[in-house]
Each structure stands twice: as structure tokens, then as C-alpha cells.
């Protein structure tokens, strides 16, 4: 099966190649571009990047499996990342996480990333997001929210529902 990569992505990688004296350096930024475009990193994508940068696929795969920001499976349309580390924990990030999991029918005791059965929501704990003064903090997709409370998370959830309604 042919894996076709759109020109916008191809051009981006070509541009990135000019930034480094060695092609291998492009891998991480290329993975960002693919993760952003497709929402996950497929085996085909890994092979395509490897070929483009004259690398073995394993050289690309070992980065995908190392860095927490990449996913090898598609994630929910709405992706919550809640800071777990000390300053946020002291300000109640565990309550936020538990609240969100319960609202979405996920198990707050499970380790790692979880996606709802309908594939709409993904929730995960992440480590310190470097905004400890505005704890607790979370990401909803690309948007960053500070000083979150259970109320504001509930609002975010209804915002998600609303957005989904608009798109349909």
C-alpha cells in the first residue's frame, strides 16, 4: 500500500532539512509535524520519515517510543493532559483528574493514557508543565488552561460537546 504524504508536510520536512548539518537531526521535528497532522505516528509514517532522512526505521521508532508526546495510536478528538507533579498536586490536580475521569467513565486508578470507548476523549497525567505559579494546569488539545477547578473543567467539557455539535 502506498502511503502518500501531503505536500504541506513534505515541504515542511524539506525546509527542516536545511536547518541542520546532519539529516538525522530532523527526526524529532519531523515527528512533531506528523503527530500534529495525523494525530498519531503510524508505522508507515515512521518508514516514510526514515526513507526521507536516509535512516533505518528503528532509528525513528526509538524516538517515538522514548518521548511521551508521541502516540502510536490515534487519540481522542479531545485530549486532556493534566499536570501531576508537586506544585499542581498540592493545589489539587488529583481531584481534577479524578473528576474528569469519573465524568467520562474512565478509571482514575489506571496508570497511563486512557481513551473513552467512543474514541472522543483521551485523558492522561503529564509531568510538570512549568507553570507552577498558576497551578493546577492542564492542556486541552493545544490550549493551555491555568488555575483550573472542577467547575472550569466541567465548562471545558460542555465546550467540547458544543464544538462537536458545530462540526456535525
Amino acid at each position, binding site marked *: 500500500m502506498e502511503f502518500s504524504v501531503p505536500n504541506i508536510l513534505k515541504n515542511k520536512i524539506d525546509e527542516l532539512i536545511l536547518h541542520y548539518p546532519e539529516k538525522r537531526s530532523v527526526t524529532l521535528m519531523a515527528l512533531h509535524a506528523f503527530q500534529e497532522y495525523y494525530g498519531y505516528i503510524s508505522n508507515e509514517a515512521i518508514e516514510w520519515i526514515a526513507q526521507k532522512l536516509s535512516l533505518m526505521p528503528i532509528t525513528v521508532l526509538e524516538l517515538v517510543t*522514548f518521548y511521551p508526546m508521541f502516540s502510536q495510536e490515534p487519540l481522542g478528538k479531545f485530549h486532556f493532559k493534566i499536570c501531576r507533579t*508537586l506544585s499542581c*498536586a*498540592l493545589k489539587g490536580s488529583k481531584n481534577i483528574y479524578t473528576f474528569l475521569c469519573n465524568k467520562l467513565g474512565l478509571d482514575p486508578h489506571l496508570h497511563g493514557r486512557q481513551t473513552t470507548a467512543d474514541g472522543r476523549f483521551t485523558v492522561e497525567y503529564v509531568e510538570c508543565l512549568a507553570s*507552577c505559579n498558576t497551578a493546577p494546569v492542564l492542556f486541552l488539545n493545544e490550549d493551555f488552561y491555568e488555575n483550573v477547578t472542577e467547575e472550569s473543567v466541567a465548562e471545558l467539557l460542555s465546550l467540547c460537546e458544543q464544538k462537536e455539535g458545530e462540526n456535525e
Partner: protein
Amino acid sequence: MAKEKRLILKHLDSKGYNPSITCYLKHNGYKTLKKAFSLLPLKTEDGKTLSAQEQLREEVKLSGIRGRGGAGFPTGVKWSFINHNTDKPVYLVCNCDESEPGTFKDRQIVHKDPHQLIEGMIIACYANDVHLAYIYMRGEFNLGAKIIEKALQEAREAGFLGKNILGSNFDLEIYLHRGAGAYICGEETGAICSLEGRRPYPRIKPPYFPAALGLYMCPTIVNNVETLCAVKHIIEIGATKYAKLGIPGDTGTRIVGISGLIQKPGYFEIENGKVTIGELIHDFAGGPLPGRKIKAIIPGGSSSKVFRADEKITLKTKNSDGTESIKTIDIMELPYDSNSIMAAGSMTGSGGLIIIDDSVSMVDVAANISEFYTHESCGQCTPCREGNLWMCKILRRILSGQGRRIDADELLRISHNIMGGKTVCAFGEGSTWPIESYIIKFRDEFLAMTGIAEDNRKEVWGESGINRFE
């Protein structure tokens, strides 16, 4: 009342200030760069000629500034390790991987005043004959990445980057490189490996000192965001004036972040050693939450050893006549600077204070921090990879009510098997200092929690001991 001294943060929060180049230029932006380019070779008294670059490097050395990333190594000395007489290119990497729990200073600069960083970088690159530099930014700063990309583009269009910058014959390109959620990339050789497209496993020193065998095995300077901004101010006001700020041994200003259980968490720029921990907590951050009492202070990011709020510190001070005197002070009276905090047995690290009050168990804190280091260990060295996970599992077990009285000593034993130069990088030490210090300084809390659990099990299982854990 102690006051802030804002150099780097001077404009960043003022009304109407924005990250655009027009705004930066309006506030005298890029003037220091022009000053650096205008330097002429200087004849010294002993007949030598110092090039403009050598003068800039000398200024940074004279300023006495110590790196603001965490290790506190003198920046000028770091720069002096670069051998300029090879045909290898020299690279500069700006470490913007800010990931140390409790630290959020670089975020402010990158999001609100990106051109200040870029100007500092151009000056540092000019001083060190660097023609290709990277900003290594943590992946989670997605907005920061957009802001920096835009700022770099603006700087390129205005002629501050590219070929023959401002007619100086100096070429420089700066590119942004994004991490993807790994704390270890903040370790300088980890960042270098990440930039090379490898797994960010730190490299062993010697021989892989970045100054000798750095990026692509070429001489490389890795400096923190705040350090590079400070370089701009050193060149702007001159090393002598900069060195008068702060105290000898830790000059200049630094951005301190206070978070945790405190009234007004925030970031403050202070002169090193001119503000005490107590002033930071009470005057700047508004003191403890109503009805609570501060119990513990993490003074410089999660890796630093904790202080008890009721701790007394014995300090040796040198008198003007050369004799030493010993005095005992309250922890709240301890000045916030590298030397004082180190003398008290911890470190200023990345300048992030986390305040813990009496509503929280230190076992909980230890478990939280241990989860972090377990997750973030790169996995290269066995003591760190296995030891941190082991400690984390013990702490999880204690929190689930299955503690044993001997767990505190067991945790100490494991932590002592990780620290002491048994790992490639300082992560091993940094991950065990906090846990070790929590147990030593709050042993009673560990014993209480595990003791209750052990006694309860005894009641359930009786004295036969067959199913006991001991």
C-alpha cells in the same frame, strides 16, 4: 521591606508590552547588540591586543555570573573552555527545556519577551564565534514555540539574523528545536543527543564535555534562557556594574519562582543574597494560606534538598580581618543565593521554591516526587532506572496502607545506592537528594504512617507472623 530588582523582567509585565519586535525596539531593543558590534580591538597595558570577541568574553567572565539553569557553573568559565583554534565550528544551544518541577521563569521570558533572549543569544554567539545556534525548547511550550518562531522571523527580516548582520561581517542563524516531553533533555548532553536525532541519553564526562565534544562532536556551549538574557544586561551595563549587584560569589539578579501552598505564588527577580527566604515567602508571596503553618521549603526545584521551616542553620562567615565567626540563624533569615543555600546544605538550583504546609504529609510529597523521577529517568544507567522505580514502588505501597517501619531505612539504603557518581549524569543524584532529605528531616512522619499500618496488620493477622512482611 525587601524589594525586587528587575533587569530581565523589567518590561515584560508592564502594560501594553508585547512580544513583537516593534515593541522591543521601542524599549531600546537590540541596542546592546549594536554596542557589541561597535567594539574595536583593544590594546592592553601589557601590549596584547584583545579582539572585540575576547573583550565580550572577558566581560562575561568578570561579571561573575553563574548559570541560571540549575548547576550554577560560572558562565564565563564555561565559555573559556572553548578552543577557538580548531577548524571545527562552534555551536551554541539555548537550553529552554525548563522542566524542573517548581520552575517557571524561562516560560515568562519566552512567552512575553522573546527578543530579549534572541538579542542575548546573538551577543553570546558573536562573542564565541558561533554561526549556527539552536533554541532547545520543551515540547509542551507549543505557544512559546510559535512566539519564538515568529520572533526569529522578525529578527531575520530586520537584519539581526542571517548574513553580515548590521554590516558587521558576522553571520548567524538560529533555529528552534522542540523536545517532546522528556525531562532528561534539560541535561546538556541529553539536549545535544536529542538535537542530533538520537535518544536523549546523557553522555559521560569526560570525554564528552560539550565544550570539547558537543553537538556533532564539535565545541558547543549550552546556556540557559535566563543566563543568555543576563549576558545581554552584562554587556549593556558593563561587568563591573553587574558584579556590584548581588553578592561576591553569586553576582547579579536571578528570577525566583514561588509555588505550592502559599497565598500569592509568582515569580520575582531579586539581587542574589539580598533577600532572605522569609522575605520571599512572607513579603513577596504573601505567606501561608489562612490557618495553615509552613512546614517545609524546597529551595531550588524538586531536586534540591528540603528545609524544615523550623530549621536552624549554622553558618560560618568570614570577618573583614580574616577570622571566621560562627552564627546560628533561623532558616527564614537565610539569604537566597547559591553560597548561603549551599552552606545550609541544599542548592538554589533553578530558583524554584515550593512551599509545603502542615496540611500535607511529607510521605505524600516524597511519593509525588518519586513518581516524577521514575517516569523521567532515561533508563540508561541501572542504578537510576531500577532504583528510582524501586523507591517509587515502596512509596506507593506505603500510601496504600501497606507500610513497614523499616521502609524509611530501606528507602535511604536504595537512595544511597543510586547517588555518589554511580550514574552517567547528575539525574541520579538529583532524584535521590529530595527523597533522602525528606526521610532524614521528617523521619517521624514516615515512621508514624508506616508504624500505624504495621500495627494494624498485626491486629488482623495476630502474632504468628506467618503473613507479615518483616
